[in-house]
């Protein structure tokens, strides 16, 4: 579950995990956060969800071993049906996938879809400001599903324009309008997460 800083990843993960848990699905969450003391993991934990923090660097380049150890511990302990991975807001999903594929023996991990959140309230800045554009565009290209987050806070015309801009960047991704606030897109996203898995 990737996406630029502040795109709503933690909020979505809490809502999605609660929904899956209510259906009897066991969910664990792995959080990799910038900062010496993690905030997101604590927040998720406070909502009663199983969460592990992987700190001290970026999982896509520095923490492959730590991440695999944590995944194996989760399998031996709570043994969840799903693990949702929340990388830092500046991580690019393909690097994480490549790391997982190379670090895990064949068949040990079944990858789900790469969901990338795009904050529709900051579309112009994210796609127009050079410092952000490169990472944000790469994140979008890596997505199987692009969730246009905070869609309730944007006018319909602007939202349609954002969807079109995003589709140009990644024509193969499924695009979902998402609002955790009013629930738009949550059912669709839950179905996709449940249905779409790929064994590596």
């Amino acid at each position, binding site marked *: 579950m990737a996406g630029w800083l502040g795109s709503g990843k933690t909020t979505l993960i809490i809502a999605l995990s609660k929904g899956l848990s209510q259906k009897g699905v066991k969910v664990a969450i792995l959080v990799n956060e910038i900062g010496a003391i993690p905030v997101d993991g604590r927040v998720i934990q406070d909502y009663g969800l199983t969460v592990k923090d992987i700190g001290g660097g970026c999982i896509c380049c520095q923490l492959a071993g730590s991440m695999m150890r944590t995944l194996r511990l989760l399998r031996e302990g709570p043994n969840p049906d799903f693990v949702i991975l929340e990388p830092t*807001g*500046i991580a690019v999903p393909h690097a994480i996938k490549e790391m997982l594929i190379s670090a895990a023996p064949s068949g040990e991990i079944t990858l789900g879809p790469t969901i990338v959140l795009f904050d529709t309230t900051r579309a112009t800045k994210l796609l127009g*400001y050079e410092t952000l554009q490169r990472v944000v565009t790469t994140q979008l290209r890596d997505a199987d599903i692009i969730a246009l987050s905070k869609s309730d806070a944007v006018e319909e015309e602007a939202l349609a324009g954002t969807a079109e801009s995003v589709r140009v960047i990644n024509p193969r991704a499924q695009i979902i309008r998402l609002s955790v606030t009013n629930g738009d897109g949550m059912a669709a996203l839950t179905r996709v997460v449940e249905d779409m898995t790929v064994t590596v």
Partner: protein
Amino acid sequence: MDGAELRRFAEALMSSISTSAVKRGAKVIGHIKAYIEHQEGFLHAHTVGEAGDITVDGREGGPVGRFRLVVNSIIFGLTVEAVKEATDEAIRKTSTLFGLVLEPTSLSRE
């Protein structure tokens, strides 16, 4: 301090860090997050620096006499030292505004 005031403190802190960083020349507010924990509950606040986008959630509980605050500021266009200064300045100013006494325990910065 009651729960509502704690929320107002969290909101004011997010705004103050953002302002303090911009004043120092920040190009982009990446994400500013705070986590407040105390015996009665917890609050988390965050902002990406846009007008009106500060979010505060959690369970503030009853009156709070003491709490632990963790702040994580990700800001582009400033040195690590400047981000630290902006964050520290905002914490000091906002705490004073709300009549709080700071007890620094451990400060870790990256």
